[in-house]
């Protein structure tokens, strides 16, 4: 694909928020450069199982948007690329440097057949499966990746040359070098999303110490249609767990780890997973240890009530510590708040930690002569929330989706379109001055 050196809008991050903003701007006739640091667009949504509260399959509803972004005449996609430097020269005038990391695969030639993946002898942990499965050094990020093209992970590659020999399209190219692109853009949307809280920062919940303690993101993978195994299995012995516990607010509402915010999504994704588990393992019992159940959005309360009616146990309880017993089962010690705070314990086959959402704001460092303010926890600050929520501290730079704080998919989409609206208004005021 030919690259222009001027675009109306640069969007950093191609999760669902970045994709949505790009599509809306593209449909309105604006030229968009969409930059994603991973090998595929889609962000976290592309990896989820189903979505609360409608139980739409996440990958099914995300793929059409991903494909639309890839094919849109007004959208230029740069995957496996990172924005390195942004300088604001004036209103509607930004100079941007972008690093195109070498994939060692010719994007135009690769047909996504996956033969390199099959022949590659190196197996490493698969970050897109949250380390529950291996991938090769030559790999396609995930089943529904867009673009569905291979990447050679040179850090792990042993240069055996198998992929190069076997690739029917002769797409493997070990001579690729990092490339820096310089472009001019009129406005910028930051849509870099969120990171997951690292559960080892709360050692009492046992992650890493007890084998059968996993994160909710891992559980979402286990439940996804493109899942690593064909069932929900616990890590220690590959057994189907019959008693599963959720611990909510892990790393959220917790000043000790520097995060006083509620993560807004974990109650609901846990409830969703509980329903899905009851479908996948009809005999399993699910218990959810919560502080408050925050089923606040459209249709959420009804979904929560339904989950309760299906038999999920909701226990208002503060979990004190989690320990492994001899069989590798997990003993949860907690204060039962609905029983006057009495200390209790119970044993489960598997414990899932509803890890919170954490800021992913490193991108602000690439802005050279302007400062993008962050809020007290480190999310991109919405400086005018009660008037124009998409604006940041720098005119011409807008924020969308989880980059500004945790939120679910529809809220991310709404904010993405809001940011798109602000770009159009800003560009019209500072660049085009058109009347239609």
């Amino acid at each position: 694909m030919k690259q222009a050196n001027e675009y109306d809008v640069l969007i950093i991050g191609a999760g669902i928020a970045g994709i949505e903003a790009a599509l809306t701007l593209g449909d309105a006739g604006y030229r968009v450069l969409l930059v994603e640091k991973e090998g595929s667009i889609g962000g976290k949504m592309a990896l989820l199982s189903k979505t609360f509260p409608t139980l739409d399959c996440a990958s099914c509803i995300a793929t059409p948007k991903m494909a639309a972004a890839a094919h849109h005449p007004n959208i230029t996609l740069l995957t496996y690329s990172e924005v390195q430097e942004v300088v604001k020269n004036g209103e509607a005038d930004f100079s941007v440097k972008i690093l195109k990391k070498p994939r060692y695969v010719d994007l135009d030639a690769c047909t996504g057949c996956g033969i390199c993946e099959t022949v590659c002898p190196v197996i490493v942990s698969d970050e897109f499966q949250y380390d529950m499965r291996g991938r090769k050094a030559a790999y396609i990020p995930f089943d529904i990746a867009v673009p569905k093209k291979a990447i050679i992970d040179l850090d792990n590659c042993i240069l055996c040359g198998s992929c190069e020999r076997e690739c029917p399209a002769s797409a493997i190219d070990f001579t690729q070098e990092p490339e820096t692109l310089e472009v001019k853009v009129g406005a910028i949307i930051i849509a870099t999303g969120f990171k997951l809280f690292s559960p080892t920062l709360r050692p009492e919940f046992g992650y890493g110490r007890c084998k059968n303690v996993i994160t909710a993101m891992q559980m979402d993978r286990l439940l996804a249609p493109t899942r690593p195994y064909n069932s929900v299995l616990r890590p220690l012995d590959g057994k189907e767990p019959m008693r599963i516990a959720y611990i909510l607010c892990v790393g959220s509402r917790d000043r000790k780890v520097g995060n006083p915010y509620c993560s807004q999504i974990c109650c609901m994704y846990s409830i969703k997973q509980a329903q899905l588990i009851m479908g996948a393992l009809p005999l399993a019992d699910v218990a959810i240890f919560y502080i408050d159940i925050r089923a606040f959005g459209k249709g959420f309360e009804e979904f929560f009530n339904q989950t309760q009616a299906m038999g999920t146990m909701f226990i208002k309880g503060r979990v004190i510590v989690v320990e492994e017993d001899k069989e590798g089962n997990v003993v949860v010690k907690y204060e039962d708040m609905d029983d006057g705070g009495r200390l209790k314990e119970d044993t489960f086959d598997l414990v899932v930690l509803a890890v919170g959402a954490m800021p992913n704001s490193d991108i602000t460092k690439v802005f050279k002569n302007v400062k993008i303010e962050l809020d007290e926890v480190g999310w991109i600050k919405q400086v005018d929330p009660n008037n124009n929520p998409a604006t940041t501290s720098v005119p011409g730079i807008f924020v969308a989706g989880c980059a500004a704080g945790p939120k679910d998919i529809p809220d991310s989409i709404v904010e993405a379109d809001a940011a798109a609206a602000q770009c159009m208004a800003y560009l019209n005021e500072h660049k085009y001055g058109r009347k239609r």
Partner: protein
Amino acid sequence: MAKRIGVYVCHCGGNISDTVDVEKVVEAIKNYPGVVVAKHFMFMCADAGQKMIEEDIKKYNLDGVVVASCSPKLHEMTFRNCVARAGLNPYLFYHVNIREDVSWAHSDNPEEATKKAIRHVKAGIEYVRHAKPLEKIKVKTIPSVLIIGGGIAGIRAALDLSRMGVNVFLVEKSPFLGGRTAQIWKVFPTGETGKEIVRRLIEELKKRDNIAVYTNAEIESFSGFLGNFTVKIKVYPRYIVKKHPRITEAIKKCPIEVPNEFDYGLTKRKAIYIPYEGAYPDLPVIDMKHCNKCGECVKILGDAVDFNQQPQTITLNVGAVIVATGFDAYEPKEGEFGYKKFQNVITLPQFERILDISNNEEKIMFNGKEVKSIAFIYCVGSRQIPTGPEKVNEYCSRYCCSVTTHLNAELFKKFKDLTIYNIYRDIRTYGKYETYYEEAGRKGAVFIRYDPNDPPQVCAEGDKLLVTVRDLLTNREEIEIPVDLVVLVTGMVARENKKLEDILKLPIGRDGFYQEIHPKLRPVETNIAGILIAGTCQGPRNIQETLASASAAAAKAASIVLRETIELEPLVAFVDPSKCNLSKLCMKECPVNAIQEKEYEGLGVKAWVNEALCIGCGACVAVCPTEAIQLKTLSTDQIRAMIKAMAEEI
């Protein structure tokens, strides 16, 4: 019927050809009716492959192309563009999937897989043989947008569109803009008053020259389709026709006093009034329901008053419509937690008004008495538990926990020696709002958790109220709390708006709010193309979320009207009038009322598909008794020919 078809079978570098014998495929179809050239190639999608097709189209004067390769999801567009580059109508092309559907799915049986590939390719040829050239549907758009509802959602959307250079008509039913936001005392996270928020938006609005504001106005009729709607609005008289320096004096002189609905009746207003200082437009209105035409105001305002002003009907032409009609506060039933039974049981919106009206006082006064203790009872009118067939508000109202905990903190900031009890079910201060909950607790607010099946009781004790509640957090101990004021934290309900809903045929969800077309991915669009929803009419939300959805709706409207024409894929139905017997079954079947009656020359009245409305589902096709209605991109004849080709023994 296409007679000069080119067929191209891809190896996909072995992905296909390792299983499917591509040579055999080419051999099997090269003499198939209509085929003039058939080839196989390593990578059809590669530049070389595409060039070959382009050259062949010119060389053999092809009138149809079939490519058999990977999934159409990957490369259908690639090849459509490729044939178009060579001057062939892109709809005279068919993409056959012999990779995912054949070679990969049947790598265990190459021989049979080859046969399946042949079947699929033959069907593709049949498709193209029966295909007709199609054009994209072009819809001219009118570069204006109608916004219904002048609350903050409506104003925000108007500003955004105006700044993009789009003309806006903003229609507000009440005499003033601003909606319910202006009623709020202090808004998180900025601590501004609601009025300040409205004022900021209005100041920007005043600067715009491409927004026409109609207050006291309603939608009367609505027709048209995406890009081109015709709307009639009725503007009711204000009876004040121009500004006058002595307005305040005239208002004072008006002898009629009625409860001011803006303050939930806590204050009074005149028949000629402005609901609050700074309301926009800054022109009073005369409320004819109560005015007795005594003429006192006319004495002062002279010809600025016109009792003979008549309603006006205005016709607007717009390309898109944004509905931003807001919410209603839940009105508790008489006796619900003592409401209307005891004077000092009030709702949260009323409490906001009290605080706002007495913003300069150092004490909270209610009914002439200082309020030193308050109990907030949460979830009133929300999260109701269904007990019978009666419909209840099962949903959570989303905004109220954050607002009330934030209010706790603001109250502690302003008033000394206040005791606040929060009697709640779950505190849902999601996201960043958690810090208000934290702060309220830190400042000494008491939180008591109740069981919805055993809700708190409110009764009077002297001039105080006594709230009796079992606290789930302390072993369901029954506690009695004497307070001066009970504030019911009432939820949001869908606004009564039947007339508008009927005119626009708005889709309504199970909770009464307007229903978006896709709850996950298209939160501001409805199933009527070109009608968008913004703010609380779609569901409860706070100001920040309301504004974001308003901007989002503006963006979606812009993506319709910023282009002079919109191009839609010809994935639509059409009627062959010579076959149509006007059974009208299709009209009943169509989910979007796209099929109408139309007079055809020489044929009389027959069915006709409005392409701008048709979504191309094909539901109509299935019910037509004479096969008169067909999809342009896949006719019944095409399907039949494909089936026949696939059924043939190979």
